[in-house]
Structure formats: structure tokens, C-alpha cells
């Protein structure tokens, strides 16, 4: 077979033709590239620009250039420290629950059972519910200390109802977000599990491996790549969780459930401080990139080979 990327006719026509077609191609793709660049660079540039100004919508007038004052203000704000920790705990907690839970559910779903198709669809369904809706459902139907199902359950077994969202706000949000992302992790891990050669499992069985050893030595290493994908993709989305917090705890009590995204929202739209919010946005971008580099270093090697 010839390499489809190389057209033998192009060589005969000399370099002229290739150069022509190359520059033509550049011209052709230029509009979309320029559009994409503007799309990205203009907001980024404006964010950086605003972050260097004193710009508060409550104080109209001049917006003087103040250097890094906004950054200093944002970074020394006690809420910022709390928000960073909350963000990291939220991401780590959800990742842990979804990966471990996803593996367990995938193991269950991989067993032959009656009504497999239906059960699989049911397991996937939380993923189709909008974040705002699912957060509302959790808040009002499950976690509400008066009317929630959990409250009734607690009363039924003779316990004091537990006000999840004010007693353990971050943990509750981790629970809600995990519920949303569990199907995604399960789906990816299940397909990976199904691609495992059954002869490998049988060979391990012949080799005297117990079910647990088979899982630990054969299935889990086979899943490592899928787990990497789940962690990478989820991290990207989990760093910017907003709707669930907005709908349930509004970041409170205090800053107990404020993450970075929510803090920026508070700065810009509650305090109308565009400058500080922009500085927060830039900090969030930097943080996301640090996490991304860190993740790629740590687990990206699983994606090689």
C-alpha cells in the first residue's frame, strides 16, 4: 500500500504546485483560525486588562490603572484560601467517589443478569439531568431537613433530621456532583472492562488467582488507561462547578462551600468589583493550568503506548 498522505503526482508537478496549494490552504482556513483566536484572545485580553484596573460598577467614573493591587487584594482575601481548599477538596472528593464507585458499578453491570439493558440505561440517566435541576431535586426532595426523604428516613428510625446543606455543605455538594458524574465514570470503565480478553481472566483463573487477585492484578491494570481518561476529563469540568453551589448553598454558610468559580462570581456580581473578579479569573486560569500540568505529569504516561 502506498502512503495515502503522499500523492506521487504532487512530486512530478514540482514544488510550485505544493507551495501554491499550501498557501491556498492557509488562506482558506484563515477565517476560522482568526475567528477562534479572537474568540479566545479578546476575552482573555480583556480579563487581564480589567484585572489591572480599579473597576467597580458601584463607583462609576475613572477606572485608573493600579497594577497588581487587585491580585494582592484577591490573594490575601481569607475567602480565597478557603475557596482554593474547597475547590481542591471538591475535585478530589468527587474524583475519588466516581472512580471507586464507577469501578464497582461497572463490575456489577458486567455480570450477566436479567434486564441488563434497562439497568444500564437507568444507571446512565443521571448524566442527562441538568446540573441545576439535579441540584434542586437533591436540595428539596432529599436533603431538606423538614420535607426531604432523608429527614423522613431519619425520623423513621428515631434520629434527629440532619440538615445536610448547612451542617455539611461541602460534603453534600460533593455527594450531589458525584451522583451526576458517576454515570460517566461507570460508562467509560464498563466499556474498558468489556474490552478485556476473557482468555486472560481464564488464564488467571487457571493460575490460581482468587476473584480479588484477578481484579487486582488483571482487571485493574487493564483499566488504568480508562481511569486516567476519567480523571483528566472530570477534573476539567469539576474545577468549574458552579450551578450546584449556586442552587443549593450559595457558597455558605460563610465560605464553607465556596469554590474559586463561585468566589469570582461573588466578587463580580455581588460586589460589582469587576477588577478583582478579573484578577480572580486570571488566578483561576493559572490554577487550572497548574492542575493540568500536574495531572499530565502524574498520570499522563498511562496514555502512552
Amino acid at each position: 500500500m502506498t502512503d495515502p498522505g503522499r500523492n506521487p503526482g504532487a512530486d512530478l508537478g514540482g514544488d510550485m504546485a505544493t507551495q501554491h496549494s499550501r498557501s491556498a490552504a492557509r488562506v482558506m482556513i484563515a477565517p476560522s483560525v482568526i475567528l477562534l483566536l479572537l474568540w479566545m484572545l479578546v476575552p482573555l485580553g480583556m480579563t487581564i486588562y480589567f484585572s489591572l484596573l480599579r473597576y467597580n460598577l458601584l463607583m462609576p467614573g475613572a477606572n485608573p490603572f493600579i497594577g497588581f493591587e487587585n491580585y494582592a487584594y484577591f490573594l490575601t482575601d481569607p475567602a480565597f484560601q478557603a475557596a482554593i481548599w474547597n475547590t481542591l477538596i471538591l475535585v478530589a472528593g468527587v474524583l475519588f467517589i466516581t472512580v471507586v464507585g464507577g469501578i464497582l458499578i461497572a463490575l456489577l453491570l458486567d455480570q450477566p443478569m436479567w434486564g441488563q439493558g434497562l439497568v444500564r440505561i437507568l444507571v446512565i440517566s443521571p448524566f442527562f439531568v441538568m446540573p441545576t435541576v439535579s441540584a434542586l431535586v437533591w436540595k428539596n426532595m432529599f436533603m431538606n431537613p423538614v420535607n426531604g426523604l432523608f429527614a423522613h428516613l431519619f425520623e423513621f428510625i428515631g434520629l434527629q433530621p440532619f440538615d445536610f446543606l448547612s451542617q455539611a455543605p461541602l460534603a453534600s455538594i460533593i455527594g450531589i456532583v458525584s451522583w451526576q458524574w458517576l454515570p460517566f465514570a461507570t460508562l467509560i470503565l464498563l466499556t474498558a472492562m468489556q474490552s478485556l480478553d476473557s482468555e486472560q481472566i481464564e488464564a488467571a483463573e487457571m493460575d490460581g488467582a482468587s476473584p480479588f487477585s484477578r481484579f487486582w492484578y488483571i482487571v485493574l491494570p487493564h483499566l488504568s488507561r480508562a481511569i486516567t481518561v476519567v480523571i483528566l476529563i472530570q477534573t476539567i469540568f469539576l474545577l468549574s462547578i458552579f450551578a450546584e453551589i449556586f442552587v443549593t448553598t450559595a457558597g455558605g454558610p460563610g465560605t464553607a462551600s465556596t469554590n474559586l468559580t463561585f468566589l469570582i462570581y461573588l466578587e463580580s456580581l455581588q460586589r460589582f468589583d469587576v477588577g478583582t473578579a478579573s484578577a480572580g479569573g486570571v488566578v483561576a486560569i493559572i490554577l487550572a493550568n497548574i492542575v493540568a500540568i500536574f495531572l499530565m505529569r502524574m498520570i499522563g504516561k498511562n496514555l502512552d503506548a
Partner: protein
Amino acid sequence: MGQITLEKVTKSFGDVEVIPPLDLTIEDGEFCVFVGPSGCGKSTLLRLIAGLEDISSGAIKIDGSDASDVPPAKRGLAMVFQSYALYPHMSVRKNIAFPMKMAGVSQDEQNRRIESAAKALNLTDYLERRPGQLSGGQRQRVAIGRAIVREPAAFLFDEPLSNLDAALRVGMRLEISELHERLKTTMIYVTHDQVEAMTMADKIVVLRAGNIEQVGSPLDLYKHPRNLFVAGFIGSPKMNLIEGEAAARHDAKTIGIRPEHIEVTEAGEWQGRVGVAEHLGSDTFLHVHDTGLTDILTVRSTGEMGLRHGDCVSLSPRHDQIHRFDASGLRMA
């Protein structure tokens, strides 16, 4: 020790009975080959013996004790799979060590057995590689190494050479025979390559649709096929099966004569026209048409023949080598 006895073993998948009641004994130290056409139940039978598949009824005995309900790991058998089934994320060393690790063998003993297996199988230089970095033949040897270190009562091979090219297959065939000579362990070997069956086996079991057609030594099957199926299946090129008048002259429904038992002579019993002549150097296979016996009569002559397409030949069969079969396909005395 490794005597394996199957007593009235059956296997059904749902309503489909793949193995009808089957009795078979494989003696300790024997090299037993299962052959048969595709889908006849060879793999299923092997997996029943291994315990990877549950028998529907009957009993499997290993060294006299009932193993029907014993889990695979406890049967003391080792299996080499057609796809090798190596663990891709482990080095060759870890692959070979895996069954010992599961059995809790001491580290020193593990190393000792790995070294000796690696030496025997020419794997010493590859111990730190991953299976993905090995050739097909090397992977095959790792799979065998993983089986050897368990020191099993019997080895089970499911078409272990079918993924290898022809030259490598001959080499590995010899290595496995060699291994059997050395270890003297029972081996059960599934193949549909009858050359492998003939060259390696102490005992061949010919299967058709889950039924045992004949059990015997390779030469036994070659010289005394019990029925038409075995006659046609064992031997390469295939035995010529002739019906009609020529058969009636021998008081049989069908007579069979192997290509090597027909000679090209000056004035023979049968005449025909040469079709394709396959010159192998050591032998020549002639496909002879228009003999009035069968469509194509295959003749095997030693050495080179000066015959060409379209030449007329005269053939004489060796009468003491004619096999006679009755109307139900069974061999007549």
C-alpha cells in the same frame, strides 16, 4: 501423576448438546491429541477438562479422584491458550511468576524455577520485556513457561501454534515434543492440523460433532481407520475414496486407497490423464482425471516425475493396502 478419565461426560449450551456422552481415558505421561473439523467440540472438551466450563453430566476424574466440581486452579492442570493470554502489563518474568505468586511459592524458589524455565525455553534475554515487545514464537514460549513453572499434573494446549507461520510452527512443534520427552508429563493438545497430530501424538482422538470417531496411535489410525470419516481425515494428501464398480469388485460399498499406495506403472489396472502435478522435490503429487473411479485420483510418487499436464498414465494400486468400508461407512475386516 496425571491420569485423566472422562466418564459419560456431556455438555450442552442451552438446548444444544455439543458433547454427547463421551468416555475417554488419557494415561499418565501420554501425549494425547484431539483432532477434528472446526466446531466439533475440541476446545469445549479441553475446557471441560480444565474446569473453565462446567460439565452437564458425567464425571471427570484426575488420578482416580472425582474432579468434576473442583475449581480450575485446584485441578493441577496448566493451560496454554491459542491467544497466549499473557498479561500485557507484566514483564515476562512477572508473567511466568504469576501462578507461583498466587500459590505462595517462596521468592527463592520462584527465581529458581523462572531461571530454569527461561533457560529451557530460550527466554533468558527477554525476561524484563513486556509481552507486546516479543515475537509470536517468543510469546508462545512465555505462555509455555508460565505453564511449566506450576509443575502441573497435565498440560492442556488449545491450538497453540495456529497463530505462527509455517516455519515457526515446525520449530515449536519439535520444542513441545522435546519438552514432553523431558518432562514426561501428560499433555492434551488440540489441533486441526493433522500433521501436528500425526507427528506429536502418542494417542490421537478423532472427534466429529462431539463424538469420538476413533482413538489410537497415529499409525493405528493411518493403517486401520475405523470408518470413512477417519479414513478421510487422517493422512495428507487425503485417502482416495472410490465407490461403484471398482468397490463392488472388493465386495465393499466404498474402498479407500492412500495416494502413496498407488504406483505409476507401464501397464496398470487403472488409466487416467494427468491434471495438476505438484512437484515437491522429494515427492510428486499427481491429480489424475478421467479414471472412471472418482473425479480426481491423487497419486503420490517418490522423486521427480517427468509427467506433464495432459499426459496419460497407467496406475496400479497395491491390493494389500486397500481399505474396505461397508454401506454404513464402517471398516470391513
